[in-house]
């Protein structure tokens, strides 16, 4: 994972928005995934030549990561959603507490570039050939997605989306 992370200059990212929620509240309704996704996607679309379409485009990938966090966290604590922007990328970071068993799942995922697989136990859809559609999404969105430990009991999902998508 360190190799992947080194592709990006973290210092070049300026914060755009930060949102934090109690995990219990977040987990209380599945629809929060959709609402949070749309809120974040709207902000990601700002500044693009076609904001509505770019927001919709990114919302598919963003939603998947928000849902991934929903399915992965069950621990008490806070979940945070942060957006950053650099000259060429938009970054979404989701950080949340995660139990140790899931940590191991994530550790396996980290060894496979662009495949943040949680496995069947998480309830995440897994195809018969063992890959998850999220890997396809990363390719479709030309995104770099990585999952890292965040302290001793936390996980963070980081996705970098190119900001230069041209739909014209």
């Amino acid at each position, binding site marked *: 994972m360190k190799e992947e992370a080194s592709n990006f200059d973290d210092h070049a990212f300026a914060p755009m928005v930060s949102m934090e929620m109690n995990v219990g509240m977040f987990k209380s309704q599945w629809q929060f995934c959709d609402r949070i996704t749309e809120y974040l996607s709207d902000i990601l679309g700002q500044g693009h030549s*076609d904001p*509505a379409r770019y927001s919709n485009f990114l919302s598919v990938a963003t939603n998947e990561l928000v849902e991934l966090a929903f399915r992965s966290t069950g621990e008490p604590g806070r979940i945070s959603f942060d957006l950053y922007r650099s000259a060429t990328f938009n970054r979404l970071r989701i950080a949340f507490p995660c139990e140790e068993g899931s940590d191991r799942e994530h550790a396996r995922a980290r060894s496979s570039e662009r495949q943040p697989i949680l496995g069947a136990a998480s309830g995440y859809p897994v195809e018969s050939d063992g890959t998850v559609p999220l890997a396809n999404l990363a390719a479709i969105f030309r995104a770099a997605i990585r999952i890292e430990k965040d302290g001793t009991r936390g996980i963070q999902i980081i996705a970098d989306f190119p900001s230069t998508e041209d739909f014209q």
Partner: protein
Amino acid sequence: MNMLPVPFAVYFDPTNQELVLSGKMRPESAAMIADALRLVQQSLEKYSGVVYLNVKRLTHINMTAFAALSDLLKESCRNRPERKIVIITSSVVAWSTALFQTLAATEPNLAIEVYDSAFYPGQSFVEDETFIPILRTQTKMTWRHERELLPRHGLRSGLVVADICCGIGDFAALVQREFAPARLVALDHSVRSLEYARRIAADFDLQGIEYTYGDASQMLLRDNQFDFVTCRHSLQIFNRPEILLRELYRICKPGGRVYITNEKNSHCLGEPHAETIKWTYEEVAKLFRHFDMDVEMGPKSRHLLADAGFDEIKVDCFMVTNLDGDPQDFADIIEAWENVYAGEMAVRRGDSLEFIRRFRQGFRDHVFAALHPKGYAGWPIWAASGRKPL
């Protein structure tokens, strides 16, 4: 905060062997969309030849729904190798083709077709680039009236505004300049029109208009976000105006207003030669009807807005005439209409040369009336708006 699931729809049209999925599919589990999946499965099992899966108005999907749908499609492709499945995606929804292409890559009897035109029946007629100068002249002439009417319909500075079916963006540019909205989104389904709109905005140093490529009957814009939504001269050229109105209603804030303009072509008039002019424009209405468009819609605006759920409806009618500025502008518009209506649409309908000759004469008489020093020529337009109830 409304936490009800955002709806999606699925239905099967046996006439076209077409499964249609639309809206937002983000279930927590496949079980939550079991009914939809069952319909897909049953339709695929029952029909032979080519079965179409139309997802062009599917605006959102999560991987739970996509994986469940994929499993069904793959299984069906493998069980029925002689039957073909064609997935119809839309160029508006930027992720759609690439995502569904992942299925086509593995199944030889599954193909993708991208839908990027024919959003409404007459699109090919009105998006001809040669029509652009006339569209600009039309807006210039109608703006003289609408500039005065729009405040009566609720437009004022500082509002969040959407101009749906903005075409070449000239009306949006005028609204931006004259009414200084807090935000202005301009949507159209023509990439070329939007390119033109962006170019004009840049040339005139007009900043802040958000141009977006979209299908007005299934917009990517969220619910309840605009104070004032305009849709000019467009409902009349959609074959399903109620679907468009439903979308205008959806994106309008409660308490906000939707403003529409439409024509009644058979009421275009002129003197001298009133009779030939009248005959030609009555034939224009019939010609559009042939292509599933209703250019007689103007007076129906109140009815349409009421049926769509709006209240506090206001209706105005104004007449663009040859006395509004330069009569040559009016004449230019009529000549452009003649070229499209008589030169293209009537020909495509298969009309006789004699009909087309007589049809053209009415336009020429209208031009004559417009340019005659004592003549009068008019083009009536209905402007209506309704409030989305609080």
